[in-house]
């Protein structure tokens, strides 16, 4: 069906555009609505900075979840694990008087080990991810109570708290943004020229410069807004750095290719000589390590580890990814979109809190959003298969 399929592809492409813009559109309308209802508080410089700081913990989890989801799995234990590792970091500073660097390292390493544990059950023992990670969720909820002894562990180490509460100096913010943009344009130009060498295809200069200008605009706006408060929050900087690294891993490495292949069609991947179990294991290790980082950020932001920390955050992470267009069926998705998804979720939480909406209602709204986002995903896939 040559002609039929090109028609179908055209329609799909359109739908894909609609979808990727739908997210931006949703974000914009949420912001506008909250801006109107809160009479300008929501989009105040101070609150925007706050909003980004709040999203950083979920954001770090969402990008890890993205990798798991693309590989066709998911991890329901990340909420508990984040809480547990945040407590471990707090305890190693306050209880064991370790250095903050050691605390961060400890959380990340134990996170990777927990990822190994999850990955072992799922990839090698054949336990469905749903059960294995649900079990882990309970295990580390228990672990969290043991570490915290049911009380709050305060952290006072100033260097550690910097991670969650401090800002990059404004000049450094500009420098980093500028550097990123230049590096980006450099690599894109190289990529485009090699594309045209191999394929004889060329994206028009107009389109390309339009895109560069767009990135410049968004990047500049972000840094200017952040700097007009106190600067880019370090937690946000960490999130952006990790997102960049993970984007590179997924798009440019052998492992990344395998993740998409395994998630898209596990049998075809196996028949192509890919070690599915190892790929799956690695995605969970990445998720675990990121949960460790998220735990650190969470503890640093609150200056304490609490027995209830990060509870239920796995669902925020899944929701962020799905809102960001990562398919629950595996095989497709992008890290950066999940970050935007996390921003959507954080905006809802932040906005509702500003309006003094009770947390019970907040749960209901978030639950509905999760369902609707997944419904949207299912419908998209039906349209593709139909």
């Amino acid at each position: 069906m040559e002609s039929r399929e090109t028609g179908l592809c055209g329609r799909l492409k359109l739908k894909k555009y609609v979808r990727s813009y739908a997210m931006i559109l949703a974000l914009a309308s949420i912001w506008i609505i909250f801006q109107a209802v809160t009479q300008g508080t929501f989009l105040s410089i101070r609150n925007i900075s706050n909003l980004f700081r709040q999203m950083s913990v979920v954001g770090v989890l969402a990008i890890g979840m993205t990798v798991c989801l693309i590989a066709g799995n998911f991890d329901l234990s990340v909420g508990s694990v984040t809480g547990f590792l945040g407590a471990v970091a707090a305890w190693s500073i306050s209880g064991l008087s370790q250095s903050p660097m050691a605390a961060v390292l400890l959380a990340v390493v134990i996170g990777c080990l927990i990822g190994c544990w999850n990955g072992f059950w799922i990839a090698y023992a054949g336990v469905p991810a749903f059960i294995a990670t649900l079990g882990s969720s309970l295990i580390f909820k228990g672990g969290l109570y043991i570490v915290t002894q049911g009380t709050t562990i305060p952290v006072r180490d100033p260097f550690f708290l910097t991670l969650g509460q401090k800002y990059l100096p404004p000049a450094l913010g500009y420098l980093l943004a500028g550097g990123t943009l230049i590096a980006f344009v450099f690599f894109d130009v190289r990529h485009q020229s090699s594309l045209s060498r191999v394929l004889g295809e060329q994206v028009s200069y107009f389109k390309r410069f339009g895109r560069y200008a767009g990135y410049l605009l968004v990047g500049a706006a972000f840094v200017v807004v952040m700097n007009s408060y106190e600067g880019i929050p370090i937690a946000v900087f960490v999130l952006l750095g990790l997102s960049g690294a993970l984007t590179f891993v997924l798009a440019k490495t052998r492992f990344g290719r395998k993740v998409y292949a395994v998630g898209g069609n596990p049998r075809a991947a196996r028949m192509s000589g890919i070690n599915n179990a190892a790929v799956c294991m690695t995605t969970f290790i990445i998720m675990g390590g990121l949960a460790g980082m998220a735990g650190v950020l969470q503890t640093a932001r609150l200056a304490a580890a609490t027995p209830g920390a990060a509870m239920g955050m796995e669902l925020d992470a899944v929701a962020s990814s799905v809102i960001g267009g990562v398919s629950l069926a595996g095989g497709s998705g992008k890290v950066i979109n999940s970050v935007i998804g996390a921003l959507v979720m954080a905006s809802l939480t932040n906005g509702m809190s500003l309006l003094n909406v009770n947390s019970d209602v907040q749960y209901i709204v978030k639950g509905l959003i999760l369902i609707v986002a997944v419904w949207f995903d299912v419908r998209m896939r039906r349209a593709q298969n139909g």
Partner: protein
Amino acid sequence: MSAEVILKLCGIKKEFSGVRVLHGIDLAVRSGEIHALVGENGAGKSTLMKILSGVYPAGEYGGEFFLKGAKARFHGIKAAQRAGIEIIAQELELVLQMRVYENVFLGSGQKLPESEMIDRTMKVFRRLGIPLDPLAPVGGLGVGQRQMVAIAKALVKEADVLIFDEPTAALSEAESQKLFFILRELREKGITILYISHRLGEVLALSDTITVLRDGRLVETRLADRFDEGGLIACMIGRELCGRFPPALCEPGEEVLSVRGMSAQDSAGRRLVDGVSLSVRAGEIVGIAGLMGAGRTELVRCIFGAQPGRISGEIMLCGRPAAVSSPREAIRSGIGLVSEDRKLEGLVGMLDVMQNITMAGLGPLSLHGVMLDGEARRQAGYYVEKLGIRCTGLYQRVEGLSGGNQQKVCIAKFLLPKPRVLILDEPTRGVDVGAKYEIYELLRRLALEGVAVLIVSSDLPEVLGLSDRILVMKDGRITGELSRQEATQERVMYYATMEGN
């Protein structure tokens, strides 16, 4: 033949999001004939049949059609079934957990006591000479038998027009013969049959009338005896094909693949492959023929390390023993297997052409784990060109390609790691005629380049035309070996049905 016209199509048009796939089809189908529809993939056969059977409801297509003189406007499959048109699709819609008679009456709208249902099912089976137990669970039946159940299901609804969409694609030769017998029986009973197939031999043997579609237009409708295979192919693709199978040009070289005493058992302890030994030399194309369930697919999966269960036997590559316990190791040691089901095991549909082609050769295309994108594009581009893969670019998703081009992507995937042995299981299943011959030519070219090629095929003319040597399997063993010169359909069938010992 001057029977009345049961189905009359007038200017049927259909488009998908602005792209026209049927350009006004006029067609008359006479009552009680077997009317074959042939054409390349994308010619519009299936679309046309979906219009007739109500899958695309009235209003979604242009033009009109008449059933028994009355204008038909179906708003769904159910309506078409009530009017007497039933489609028996490639994927049979049966409930595997239920018994045969329950399936037969499922959705028939008839409320009958069980004994009555069993009785009527029996009657239909007897009428058509189908040896099936109405009480058997459908899950335990083979594909051919399931098709019989689907036919019975249509008949209890008293369908006048049965549409078959590639019914023999998954059938063995013997099962196909059985199906043809039943189709002829149905014709005797006055039922009209519309028949889509890529296998031109069976179309010519079976049908009364043949209609050829090309690019959404009706090219020709003629009585079957006015066509021969060459003419039919020319009509379908709009040009003559000279020399259907490329000839073998050189003497085969050294032995590349040697398998000794290969056996495989499934988890229930049944022997699927039973002490098979074979060898393939460089530059040689060896075909494995046999009926469904003869263990051909299992054998090649053993060689590729993809067969589960207990495996024994040894594999030698170029005289050296090779430990092949997974596809990964097989690919590393220079074996490739293009499996029989490309959707299930060959392609990742949502990834693009380049990613699919490079999937089995990521190692050499990366440095310290980082992909060398330029090199990957260059290699993928090379194979797209070499195999004539028609796509809009390296970044087109493979799910949008036609069957033939998808198959070429699957082949390209295993050419990229530079295999010494390339195994293809049903290399042209669901591939249209034009692409079929391109694949034949490609395999011959690969052989000339020194690759040892092993093919498994249920399409007898294909095995006979392509192979330098043919191995015939039955019950997990090789029962016969035939050279290109001595191989005929009869001899192959003789070995394929040979009783053990």
